[in-house]
């Protein structure tokens, strides 16, 4: 009997070991491939200069337009998503605290939205743009990416709020706070570290997504100055370069992929560091 348990334990250990390490290995392999293919094309020029004419046919210059464009778009979308998402998450957890079933229904729909492929958001954004008479533009891209990341953000915020013990709310209420005061002064502060993490993760998802901006954001060699101009994004820039028949341009696609990967890695690492820094006041 005991022996059987030991074997069981042992098998389980091996399986989880393999699973954990294969995830790491796949990630490493992916990074190695991208870096190997792109490092030779990566240069200061690519990162810090605008594309010159005919860039996608082997012309000079860089992808600064796409880097800056991606930041514009993702920052805009994240801000929009937070404006909608934070009150929504607080609403679910504070106002609806007594309505468990409504809470779970909302969560179910948000999770379903989370699972929708981003090309569907792209198509929806495109249809909405036609309806509103918008051109492919920074604004349309921001709206579409915000649609994509809002459910993610709400659910991530929601998960943070869910981990906050109900006794903390009870403490706040019994000191005489209203629901709003409890939400703003206690729940928000307790969850702050988690919110930052959620925010950066949503931002990372936004900056890396190609399909949602394919029809909605357009593409341009310039950096937009107004919301109704088209905007270039890194994922699309990679896509266009990869589809080039010219070998040199395809190599540059991998250089752009390195840039995107590094940006996302930096975001993930800062999410970790920031959440550590800001959790010093939260109750464990």
């Amino acid at each position: 009997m005991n022996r059987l348990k030991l074997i069981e334990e042992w098998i389980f250990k091996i399986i989880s070991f393999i699973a954990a390490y294969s995830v790491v290995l796949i990630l490493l392999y992916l990074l190695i491939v991208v870096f190997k293919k792109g490092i030779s094309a990566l240069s200061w020029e690519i990162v810090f200069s605008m594309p010159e004419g005919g860039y996608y046919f082997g012309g000079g210059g860089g992808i600064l337009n796409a880097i800056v464009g991606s930041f514009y778009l993702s920052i805009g979308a994240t801000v929009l998503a937070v404006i909608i998402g934070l009150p929504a998450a607080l609403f679910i957890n504070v106002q609806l605290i007594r309505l468990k079933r409504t809470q779970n229904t909302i969560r179910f729909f948000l999770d379903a939205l989370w699972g929708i492929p981003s090309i569907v958001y792209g198509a929806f954004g495109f249809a909405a743009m036609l309806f509103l008479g918008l051109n492919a533009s920074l604004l349309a891209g921001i709206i579409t990416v915000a649609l994509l990341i809002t459910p993610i953000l709400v659910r991530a915020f929601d998960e943070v709020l869910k981990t906050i013990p109900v006794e903390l709310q009870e403490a706040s209420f019994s000191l005489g706070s209203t629901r709003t005061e409890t939400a703003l002064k206690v729940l928000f502060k307790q969850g702050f570290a988690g919110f930052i993490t959620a925010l950066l993760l949503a931002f990372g998802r936004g900056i890396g997504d190609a399909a949602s901006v394919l029809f909605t954001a357009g593409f341009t060699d310039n950096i937009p100055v107004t919301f109704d101009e088209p905007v270039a994004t890194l994922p699309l820039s990679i896509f266009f370069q990869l589809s080039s028949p010219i070998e040199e341009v395809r190599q540059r696609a991998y250089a752009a992929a390195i840039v995107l990967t590094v940006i996302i890695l930096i975001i993930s690492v800062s999410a970790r560091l920031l959440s550590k820094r800001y959790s010093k006041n939260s109750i464990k």
Partner: protein
Amino acid sequence: MKQMAFTYQPNLLSESVTMENQTEVAEMKKDSPIIEIKNLNVKTSEGKILKDINLKIPKNKIVVLLGPSGCGKTTLLKSLNRLTDLYKELKVSGQIIIDGQDIMKAGQNLAVMRQKMGLLSQRPFPLPASIYKNVAYGLKLKGIRSKKLISHSVETNLKRVGLWNEVKDRLKSPVTSLSIGQQQRLCLARGLAVKPAIILADEPTSALDPISTKIIENLFKELKQHYTIILVTHVLRQALRLADHVVFMYYGEIIEQGHPDEILKNPKTAILKKYLVDGN
């Protein structure tokens, strides 16, 4: 009427509670309890948690709620400041009259009503802020803005719970730097700062070490001069040490109540006799 309300929120910070005032009101209210619970029922879809609770709680005494776990002590305590509102599945009915007011009809004044009661839970739940801000929190909610008043109250209340010397040099530090026992005392200070008349304590020492437990118990003995304390415990010896009145509950009902010596030394009912022997 105004005078009564005044003495029910004892203001320990200022010395302005005059003797005449106290005796006058004490005489008027000698026999009337500060809390009167009438036919309180708490139900869920699965059944009753509290069944027809009728209970009078005298002023400035320690009333101990005793009973096996799951008998409804926490629910009774939470009904008193309507924290039961947070749980939709709980249907509360009956009357709870505090200070002459039926709190079941408190409406908009819920927050004010709740400030009459300080809550101490089983584990300390300090707010996610500094030590200072924890004590200041309730005062700010009351609309007190004066830095001087707030600082004074923080100091006074931290002193009352014997925490001042331990934390006076690090008031701005996060509460997580305190031990559990210190956090529990901080929670008490935080509750006292809003000047409640009643302290609701739900097994406040069950997560604490013996020394912190002793400190809290001694605090309660002092505090009962000015506060009505309702203490949930399942430690019989704690009940004997602290209680002026013991209420024994079992499966949502009050089985027996009275002076601790009577109740704990000469139980009348078989249920209580069994509980005193086996603890359930």
